[in-house]
């Protein structure tokens, strides 16, 4: 009975949101999915929203069309450009609430998520990370660093001022482990009283993006409890996705903590003078705004302040930056599915960086990092341009 009510309320919410859409189609002018695909209207914000609306209204959630509807709903990168555009020029439709609501509905009705995402959710549930990696290996990146030098972190448990919430990708992805290590080096340099959770689990954002609400609730509840137990005052994240979900989607109690993305934390430290980049990095650097840090949360300046404080760095802006930055294509669960693109988003972005003469694309998101690094290879630009995390650049300037 309660399940039916949940489904009915969800359907009503989605249709109500879609009724606000006036098909002005302004959102298509900023949608990365539309830009990178053939030009069909269901690969654009309003088209996706109207698809789930009519799918509900016309009872297409049982028939043959349900998988087509699923594919339509899950192709969105959830970059937020449409929401911003509609807010500035249109009726302010909360498009992503409708689209993510649609994903929740499809999961509830067992039509979603995408087949390739099922094992991701299973891994989240069983291993606390989406990569099918054992929890026991989650802190390997830290152990490797400890073999090189002594560290002053606390393994929580209890008792530090700041929690470094590492996240799954920096914990397990070989290339991104270096980012985690760079962040730790920076924390050491600042002399922060920081800790890392003994048994960190996924923030839950992938579950939420894929529409698996129950799993998200479980993970968020567990994490919140661990945060409370740890006694920290402040939480720093490496990934903007973790940041976004803590700040905007976690239960009310999260407001008892100050949440910062690492770029905000270290920009503050630089301003206070507790972090002084010394070594020159003579490079032309462009900064790629991650959607989940920039568009979704308005953090545009902190990463730039850091980059501009590094001696030798020449910061150039790509044609599309800040709130009209081009999505790398990695968000919204798209790291795990293939969407047929006429022009790969990440490749378009690398080309934009090359066009302004950048030698380094700096970013502040593990998924942007992976996507862009991949695209540097596939566009044949290895050796001409490289992708670096803001933390890596800052750490190498100490």
């Amino acid at each position, binding site marked *: 009975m309660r399940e039916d009510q949940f489904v009915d309320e969800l359907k009503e919410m989605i249709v109500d949101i879609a009724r606000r859409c*006036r098909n002005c189609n302004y959102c298509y002018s900023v949608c990365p999915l539309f830009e990178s695909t053939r030009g069909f209207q269901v690969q654009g914000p309003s088209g996706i929203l109207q698809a789930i609306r009519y799918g509900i209204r016309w009872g297409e959630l049982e028939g043959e069309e349900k998988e087509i509807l699923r594919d339509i709903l899950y192709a969105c990168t959830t970059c937020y450009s449409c929401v911003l555009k509609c*807010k500035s020029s249109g009726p*302010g439709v909360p498009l992503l609430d409708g689209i993510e609501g649609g994903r929740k509905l499809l999961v509830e009705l067992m039509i979603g998520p995408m087949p390739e995402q099922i094992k991701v959710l299973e891994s989240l549930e069983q291993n606390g990370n989406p990569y099918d990696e054992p929890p026991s290996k989650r802190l390997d990146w830290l152990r490797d660093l400890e073999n090189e030098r002594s560290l002053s972190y606390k393994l929580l448990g209890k008792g530090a001022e700041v929690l470094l919430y590492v996240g799954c990708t920096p914990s397990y992805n070989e290339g991104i482990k270096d980012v985690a290590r760079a962040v730790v080096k920076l924390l050491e340099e600042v002399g922060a009283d920081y800790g890392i959770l003994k048994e960190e689990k996924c923030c839950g954002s992938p579950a939420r993006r894929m529409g698996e609400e129950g799993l998200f609730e479980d993970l968020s509840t567990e994490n919140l409890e661990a945060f409370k137990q740890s006694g920290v005052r402040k939480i720093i994240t490496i990934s903007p996705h973790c940041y976004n979900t803590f700040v905007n989607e976690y239960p009310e109690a999260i407001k008892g903590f100050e949440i910062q993305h690492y770029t905000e934390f270290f920009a503050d430290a630089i301003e206070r003078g507790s972090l002084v980049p010394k070594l020159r990095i003579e490079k032309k650097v462009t900064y790629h705004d991650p959607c989940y840090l920039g568009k979704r949360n308005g953090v545009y300046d902190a990463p730039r302040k850091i980059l501009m404080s590094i001696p030798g760095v020449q910061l150039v802006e790509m044609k599309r930056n800040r709130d009209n930055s081009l999505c790398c294509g990695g968000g919204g669960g798209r790291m795990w599915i293939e969407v047929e693109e006429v022009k790969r988003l990440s490749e378009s972005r690398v080309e934009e960086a090359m066009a302004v003469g950048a030698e380094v694309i700096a970013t502040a998101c593990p998924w942007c990092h992976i996507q862009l690094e991949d695209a540097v290879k596939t566009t044949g630009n290895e050796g001409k341009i490289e992708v670096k995390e803001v933390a890596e650049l800052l750490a190498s300037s100490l």
Partner: protein
Amino acid sequence: MSRLSEAELEKMIKVLEGIVSKEYVSTNLFERIKNTLDVYPYEVQREQICYAVVMPGSTQEISEIVKYANSIKVPVFIRGSGTHLGGNYRPHVPGIVINTHRLDKLEVFEDYGYFECEPGCIVAKVADRLAELGYFLPMAPGSRQIATMGGMIVNNTSGHIVDPSIGKPGDYLLGLEVVLPDGEIIETGTKGLRRPAGTDLTKLFLGGDGLLGVITKIRMRLVPQPERAYGLAVFKDLISLARGVQRMYLERRPAPLFMEFLDDRAASFGFGLRGLEPPGGPVIMFVSIGSSEREAVDKAEKILESLRAEGTIDAYMVHDLDVWEKIWTSREVIGSNLMQQSGAQLSSAEVSSNLKDLVDCMQDCINFNKGLPLLSKLDLYLFGHIGALTLHPAVLIPREWDDEQKRKAVDEKFKREAELNLKYGTCGGEWGQFGKRKDFFVKRYGERSYEIVKGLKKMMDPNNILNPGILEGYR
């Protein structure tokens, strides 16, 4: 035309795939739904959803599709971005939707003095490219970031531009390539800089409301980017505002490129949103142009003289571009903010006044929704391109209303709009004719005129394949 059977549909899809290739044909239900939607707030019905959406990449492909459609008597609907405000874009019977998205080539021939573009080019992209080269695109629809060139030519609309200043886009149209409703391809016009004198078939398609042909190539003269000067005038009330505009014309002031007005409430609201002090009355904001800055400034000052003579509270040139940006964009944010505050959908009418009766027309627009069963329940906002004598009385249609109420509300709007345009002997200058305005056309110009258009349509499109429903009128 009865519905296609499953077998006929399957055959048709195969043929279409043969023409444009499989990857550019979609029979996906949701793609078909979205391509059948327009800006009106009521839902579409299953029976009217198109059979398929195709995205041709060339004139030749369009020609083949149209020829084939004729042979099986299936309608073809041409879609750019589907943003037409007069109801011309919402197919009422199933057919093939040709989406012009892929036809986005733009070539600038500076040595010829013109540019050529395909109909799917987005207005803002064309304008930006031309601006990079120092040219000006004589089109300014509010939907420029998504509206297509094809749609603009089919309406011959300049959007917000004041026609008496630089004319309509058609004045710059040198020629077209068109696919006729039987699939034949013709070229019209000239490659010279002088538009044809005498018979020019361009005229059948320019402002053609999509009745007589599919535009596949557009050639327009390059116009150098003019210099601009900006002015603002605050009036005591809308009546003296209207008088100000009349005086501007009667005193033979050079018509401005843009001249917008906002009623008191809209102005306060919009200015506030942009961080400006509320002006304290309805406002006019305008842009004068010239080949030099001095000329533009001179023209703006002359206009201000006329406006001041009607007793403005304040009237001045705006020199600070940042301030102008805020003033100018306050118009844009009003609509979106009103919609966001209420969750409703803004729906406006397009009333065209004549010069002599502008004051009366303004009064009629202030009273636009009086006595209308549904619209009188709603707040009225008034703004528009007053320099072009276009007024937009607008209401917010609540989303809780059911489809039938929404439909009736839209009907009331078009009916009242028709009454006013009839009263003043005018017709829409921005959105085109027919569609939801077919009743007006007949009342305004008479049955004979309507028969003429029907006759042309019948001669050129005997099977009524191309965009059927526009001429007949939509509800």
